[in-house]
């Protein structure tokens, strides 16, 4: 199979050759896009909770609150990261079925998924998932409710900081609220392909 690498690059060079000078890369302070007045003096976990509410997400601070929320929603069957389960299991009383391996052939059976988040962004109400910290991409995506366990210390203030911390992971995803669409007549509907409820469990 022939590849057009050389022809494309030579067309690029040809196109750019007549330019007397190339546009310079502007120097700028990333601070320019930071919502500094929003962040000033705020506790990041509190701000995260506030900003998550703004995008119809929810931040909770105790496993008991998560369990109560799931029970109230009738979500009894779920997936949990095997590394998190030992600590969480005591909070899940009878009536819950929790699996620590996500079986894709039974995708419809999982009503919730609990995975570890690599961090969060307070400014935008965002949860950060990375391949190395998320036990299952599908487990965090397919169930109706996604609960991401975020350590306080991993909460970034703003988007700029989170970009700087993308790191070496080959797959990072930022989730800002539940999956949504406004395709049909501009009406907001949540839970299109991903979770209809995006929850952060903020832990110390």
């Amino acid at each position, binding site marked *: 199979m022939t590849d057009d690498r050389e022809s494309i690059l030579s*067309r690029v060079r040809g196109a750019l050759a007549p330019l007397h000078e190339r546009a310079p890369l502007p120097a700028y302070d990333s601070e320019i896009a930071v919502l500094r007045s929003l962040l000033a003096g705020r506790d990041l976990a509190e701000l995260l909770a506030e900003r998550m509410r703004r995008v119809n997400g929810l931040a909770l601070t105790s496993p008991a609150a998560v369990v109560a929320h799931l029970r109230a929603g009738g979500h009894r069957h779920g997936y949990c990261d095997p590394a998190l389960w030992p600590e969480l299991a005591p909070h899940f009383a009878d009536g819950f079925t929790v699996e620590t391996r996500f079986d894709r052939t039974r995708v419809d059976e999982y009503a919730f998924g609990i995975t570890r988040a690599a961090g969060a962004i307070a400014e935008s109400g965002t949860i950060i998932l990375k391949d190395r910290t998320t036990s299952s991409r599908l487990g965090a995506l397919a169930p109706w409710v996604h609960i991401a366990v975020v350590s306080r210390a991993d909460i970034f203030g703003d988007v700029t900081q989170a970009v700087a911390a993308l790191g070496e992971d080959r797959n990072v995803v930022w989730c*800002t609220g539940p999956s949504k669409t406004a395709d049909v007549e501009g009406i907001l509907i949540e839970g299109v392909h991903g979770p209809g409820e995006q929850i952060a469990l903020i832990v110390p």
Partner: protein
Amino acid sequence: MKGQAIDRFAATLPAETRASVYQSTKATHEKRTRLLFDQFADPDRLRALAGEIKQHAIENLDTYLPQAEARLRANGAQVHWAGTAEAACAHVLRIMRDRGATKMVKAKTMVSEEIELADYLGRHGIEALETDLGEFIIQIDHDHPSHIVRPIIHKNRREIATSFEREGLGAYNDDPATITRRARHHLRHKYLAADVGLTGANFLSAESGRIALVTNEGNSRFSVAATRCHIVLVGIEKIVPRDRDLGLLLNLLGRSATAQDLTVYTEFISGPRDPAQPDGPEEMHVIFVDNGRTEVLAGECREILRCIRCGACLNVCPIYRQASGHAYRSVYPGPVGAVLSPLLLKENFPQKADLPKASSLCGACHEVCPVNIPIPDLLLRLRARAKEENVPSPGTPPMGPWALLASQPTAWRAALVAGRALNVLPTRLIPVPALQAWTASRELPGWRGGEFRRWLKARRRPAPPAR
């Protein structure tokens, strides 16, 4: 056919379609503006900066493309280069055949629409299923998107419900929540059964080889969570120098497109899944697509390559609001499309040379563009090119005679006096098409040619002569 195609199209657009396109573009534009100006002291500064970064990137593609390629390779991705639409489609087909793959799930990508990938794969026996809700509906209806962010902005819920019923997705129900729920259940099994997930890329960082990809529905995330092979189609102009530039651009993209601080899912992908991760592609292919972009880069409208496909220029455009997207006969409608679509046609430019004329040059597009593209200037350049290439333009008054008159003061003054005929002759008897077009819907003011000059002369205190 008389008149301009876009004008005719707009005149025959159903009132209901026009009303819904108008309302939703206006609402999105107003939300976008409120958000940006509430949050930032000077959003225009951000737009200018983002424009400079992208301009720098496209003017240094010769450096950045090989750099991104090397990083992607180092991360375990395979990189392919496609000069044309056909080459890009052929790359995809070959990758699939090499794996014995027959089923693809597609996230929304403008490039795949531009190269008509789904049709191509269909002809070669491969199912390429659209997963964005709007695009899915377009696909089952054999329709075309009419907006780059809101593909079915031209459809109402009743039409969608009818299509779903026809496709066996449940009894007629036009409740948007029900429609969405049904699509959710239908599509998730398609993801899980697919061999390949195809996405676009909103940005490609040369520094890290990361592609940044945004969706609200999570369909691209599902495509790369459920399948074993990820193919990325990326226009070569999507490159940005560094990861930190992604921060600024993402901040602007969500706000400009849908008035969100960030789009719900923002993915950064620089290679196949981590070995510790059970889900997702073990193979990643990135196809760099040219398909006319290097020609655009060589021309005087290269600024359009900064575009980040946010749709803000469509939402604010008074022409788009009246005519809707199909009027532009192209994957890229609205102001950005009026520039990009004819350019991407290369030597077939004349086929869409009418698009740049469908503008009052009001400049609203420039004012909202997150990368500050001077769209009106580019429209003007393309008008000049159309004239140079002698592309016929119905209804455009000839300017040669006027220019002759306007460069000869004596003749000009005589014409000012002669124009008084307009006040006595019925305009319908004057065979000037522009006059006819004007007076078809508007009164013409009374002709007072030369009156000002007489007034000035008659004053006691005559104006001093110019030096």
